[in-house]
């Protein structure tokens, strides 16, 4: 499983000048795009389709967070996302360990996991709704079904390629099988599992939103659909921005936790 070590791209490891350069490049690019967007929207955009950034920011206050219905929808999505993610983590790691811990289990079951992972899950949405209903349960279930697979796959991948030398070393020192798992296998798999967790975060959000968009009558997804269908792009983009911030915040939280577990790599 290919995992990208994003910490290498983080600004923290660079000298100050370079860090400044990176930061200013990033800010300039984003500002430039926003200005382009603003100019385009003001001059050529059709009012029902594109809103200039200034309008979007304006909509953030009164339309989105001023409306209690929208406010509770954002909160609802956030809660659903949190619950779905936590369930994905618990279920994914448990199943991953179960499948990956033994050679026979891994060889026998891993292809089945990969097969299930490959199914485009949108096709299962009607079924999920039939089973779990239109409410939060259905959305959480669909979020979990998206989030659980990257975690299972990365947990299994994380258990492979444990250095046989370290295992032999531990055994020569008298480590039991459980001790080998606790002190050698678990620390070895942390980085890979966290890569899975971050991927799962995005996937869970996707699952929850898909359910909201297509079938539900609550949450952010529902309101994005309403705004789009009523040609009201400013609050639509405002909602999307809120969503993006939510995703970034949770991703950052996961990254912080990861840093605590991988101090030895820095």
């Amino acid at each position: 499983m290919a995992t990208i070590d994003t910490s290498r791209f983080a600004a923290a490891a660079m000298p100050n000048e370079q860090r400044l350069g990176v930061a200013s490049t990033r800010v300039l690019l984003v500002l430039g795009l926003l200005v382009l967007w603003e100019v385009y929207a003001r001059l050529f955009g059709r009012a029902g389709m594109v809103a200039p950034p200034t309008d979007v920011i304006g909509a953030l206050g009164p339309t989105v967070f001023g409306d209690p219905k929208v406010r509770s929808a954002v909160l609802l999505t956030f809660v659903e996302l949190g619950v779905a993610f936590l369930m994905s983590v618990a279920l994914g790691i448990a199943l991953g360990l179960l499948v990956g811990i033994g050679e026979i289990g891994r060889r026998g079951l891993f292809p089945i996991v990969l097969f299930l992972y490959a199914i485009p899950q949108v096709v299962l949405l009607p079924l999920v709704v039939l089973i779990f209903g239109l409410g939060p349960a259905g959305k959480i279930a669909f979020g979990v079904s998206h989030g659980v697979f990257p975690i299972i796959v990365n947990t299994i991948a994380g258990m492979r390629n444990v250095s046989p030398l370290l295992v032999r070393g531990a055994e020569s020192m008298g480590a039991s099988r459980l001790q080998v798992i606790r002190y050698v296998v678990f620390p070895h798999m942390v980085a890979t599992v966290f890569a899975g967790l971050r991927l799962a975060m995005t996937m869970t959000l996707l699952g929850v939103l898909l359910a909201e968009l297509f079938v539900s009558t609550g949450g952010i997804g529902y309101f994005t659909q309403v705004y789009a269908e009523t040609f009201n792009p400013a609050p639509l983009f405002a909602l999307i921005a809120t969503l993006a911030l939510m995703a970034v915040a949770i991703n950052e939280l996961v990254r912080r936790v990861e840093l605590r577990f991988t101090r030895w790599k820095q």
Partner: protein
Amino acid sequence: MTVDMRNGAAQPTQAVAIAIDRVSQRFPGRSGTNPMLALDDVSLEIRRGEFVCLIGPSGCGKSTLLNIVGGLIAPSAGSVRIGRNTVNGARPREIAFVFQESTLFPWYTVLENFRIALKFQGVEGGGWRDRAMAALRAVGMENFAEHYPSQLSVGMKQRINLARGLCVETDIILMDEPFAALDEQTRMVLGEDLSVLLARTGRTIVFVTHSLAEAVFLAGRIVVMTARPGRVKAIIDVPAPHPRSPDFMLAPQFSTIRNDLFALLRDEIRQTVAAMREARDGARP
């Protein structure tokens, strides 16, 4: 210097620490090939406090023999006794391993690595820190206790690996080419350190190496093994007390033994190379 051919019996002066009794090891071949005989009827007695080097061409089963002695591999035939007990699994209380590459866990600091090693061994509770620090001081690494292995050079890591082997206070230390990954100079310094440490602690050591000079410098007895299947070809005594200074390498005795060793090994190495050429052309066992 005495060369007693194919006779591994110890002199009765010291208690036998390790008795290897007619050990053979057969590894299953890949499908369609015959099983590979790695060790053939090896017998050897190692006295307490002795430093024995195993030397032989690549693939002669030196490491396999070491793993059998340490209980990490069960032999196909024969047995190994440690004191009065027959080996049938790892014996962490009596035997420590030092491998060619550092087996320090990269996710623990040096000090934590010592704690884990003692925990694996079954030593719990206080006192571990003092033992760890004492072992680190013995190899001059006490200032690196809070470092992670990735922050250390290969030589430093191997030093600590060695210290960990000493820290667990086993009577026997099995070393599988512990200095092979090091450069010549680091290797010489570590060899000297080991010689000094040994003179102080009186552990029994079995040391696998490819290096003739290393074997002569460190060993009390050198066991020369044949090309695969590994047998004991000869045993050479190196009658010089530990600690040995680098001057020992310049002594005439040193080169005489080294040359004898080279003569004994030359044929075996040729044979190994021939076997490898043959294997390259097809059915490798």
